[in-house]
């Protein structure tokens, strides 16, 4: 078969198609491996006891991750409390003032913030909150995670509101509604699905973040509800126990990994489903 003949070209065409297909689907393999492996390692460790107990010291079997679960939920709750209102307001600002100079800088800074490595946010939160307050605290972890949430909420809010027809707002203005009522009664309710999926995506993102918590929430082997004191969280527990030399602790980390993975994946899949149902473009 000579080079350049039609047969050769068709053969080459199919050859490359096969190659591209193989490479594309090879990407799925590591994910499936990871899911399967975590499931196999973690499923035997999870039971009721695992969910309601705190880790036991080395040498004692049993113990659970209750402190990390509570810590994760509290830390995420407080970061959502900070980031969601600010993020949505910033998104509204960007979609309402598309051309202004400040909006340009805000948009640029949101983009920058999205790319900042999480460890850098950890350092900054350490100097902004941990040092002035004189100790590691869950609250500082929440603020670090809130900074990570912000850009995702801002961008998804902006993208959603940008797509709304301007006639909607104009109709409301024509009825004499003041600006803030137009935003809260017309614009936000119409775009709520997109905003919500952005919020859920951002929560999924920060649930697995470990690096910003290393110098802020720090970790705590006991159950704690005090947000001004160090607190454990699932990713921190996994990091600390996975790198420990003890098998009991590694088992604990496997169980925690499975919980964390399920949490994050379910949140992602759920977001996918609602975006499909509400036909949101993100």
């Amino acid at each position, binding site marked *: 078969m000579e080079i350049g003949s039609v047969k050769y070209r068709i053969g080459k065409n199919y050859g490359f198609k096969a190659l591209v297909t193989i490479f594309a689907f090879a990407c*799925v393999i590591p994910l499936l491996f990871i899911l399967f492996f975590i499931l196999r390692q973690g499923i035997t460790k999870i039971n009721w006891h695992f969910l309601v107990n705190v880790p036991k010291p080395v040498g004692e079997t049993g113990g659970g991750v209750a402190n990390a679960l509570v810590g994760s939920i509290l830390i995420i709750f407080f970061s959502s409390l900070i980031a969601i209102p600010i993020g949505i307001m910033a998104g509204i600002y960007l979609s309402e003032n598309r051309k202004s100079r400040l909006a340009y800088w805000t948009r640029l800074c949101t983009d920058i913030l999205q790319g900042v490595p999480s460890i850098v946010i950890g350092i900054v939160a350490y100097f902004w909150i941990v040092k002035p307050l004189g100790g590691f605290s869950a609250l500082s972890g929440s603020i670090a995670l809130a900074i990570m949430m912000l850009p995702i909420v801002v961008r998804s809010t902006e993208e959603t509101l940008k797509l709304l027809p301007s006639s909607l707002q104009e109709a409301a203005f024509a009825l004499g509604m003041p600006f803030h009522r137009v935003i809260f009664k017309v614009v936000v309710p119409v775009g709520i699905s997109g905003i919500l999926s952005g919020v859920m995506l951002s929560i999924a993102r920060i649930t697995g973040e470990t690096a910003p918590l290393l110098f802020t929430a720090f970790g705590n082997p006991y159950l704690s509800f005090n947000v001004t004191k160090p607190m454990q969280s699932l990713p921190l527990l996994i*990091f600390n126990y996975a790198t420990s030399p003890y098998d009991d602790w590694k088992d604990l980390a496997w169980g925690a990994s499975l919980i964390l993975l399920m949490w994050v994946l379910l949140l992602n899949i759920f977001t996918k489903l609602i975006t499909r149902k509400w036909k949101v473009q993100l």
Partner: protein
Amino acid sequence: MDTSVENGAVTRSDHPLRVINSTPEAIAKAQRRVQRSFRQIRTESVFRQSLMIIGLLMVVLVLGILLTLVVQSLPSIKALGPKFLWGKVWDPVQDIYGGLPFLLGTLISSFLALIISIPFSLAVAIWLGEYYPKGWLPDFLKNTVELIAAVPSVIYGFWGLAVLVPIVRNLETHIGVAPIGQGIFASSLILAIMIIPYAASLGRSMIQMVPSQLKEAAYGLGATRWEVIRSVVLPYTKSGLFAGILLSLGRALGETMAVTMVIGNTSLMPTNIFAPGNTMASVIANEFTEADKPVYLSALIELGLVLFLVTVVINLIGKKIIDRFTND
């Protein structure tokens, strides 16, 4: 409504406050109405201002991050000067701080990861963008690839430690280097998996934006599918694909936890790609809470500053390219 023109100005003679019904209740009601609309106007301007303040807050936040990093790394910048960046020895016990091992560790692991991941992410982008844009199988592939980005990095690290490191160790005994397992190569493998989705999803949307006339013209000239991809689609999307790769690189440079867990954590200069090492992010994660001397801490923050600046520049270039591409 009676309107009359006096001195060129329109006045309404039946203004609610003046003419109609001058009973006290009616006046009070009208006043309340006026007050209410004043309140609405005030709230409106307060709302507009608070939106602007929050917009400003994002700018202040980023400037604050930069400022904090600069101020906190000043002691190290003063004490060590620019030679910090090419000092080969990192020995906090003897107060010697050279950042080169970490710069090299970061660059080698990230670029190696990029080289490994490019064929895969490009294949996903082409397959989804050109071959099969619609259907259940493409949907499955697209969602799965996006889930790769959703898995927390600490889980990649744990998996890498338990599964990948033994495999790499095996490989190392076969090719005759010290079988440590943990090292730059293992962390590159993990990073390569983690960064596939970024270049893939951007590349896919770029490839879908290629105008169909261009492709149809090539088909009309008798080109095969592959020839269309190679000589129309890829050249057209070149800059967009490059931007996707840049964003992947930005991710790889800043990735902390997975790398920290599998790279082996030594502060020696990496001698080959299998050697254990440290990246800028991983050395910060490991030593930040142990840094007992001001210069030590500040040297770590200077590494953070370098990391911040590099990722910001890379991301901004990537975003600029994407903006130009999507606006054309």
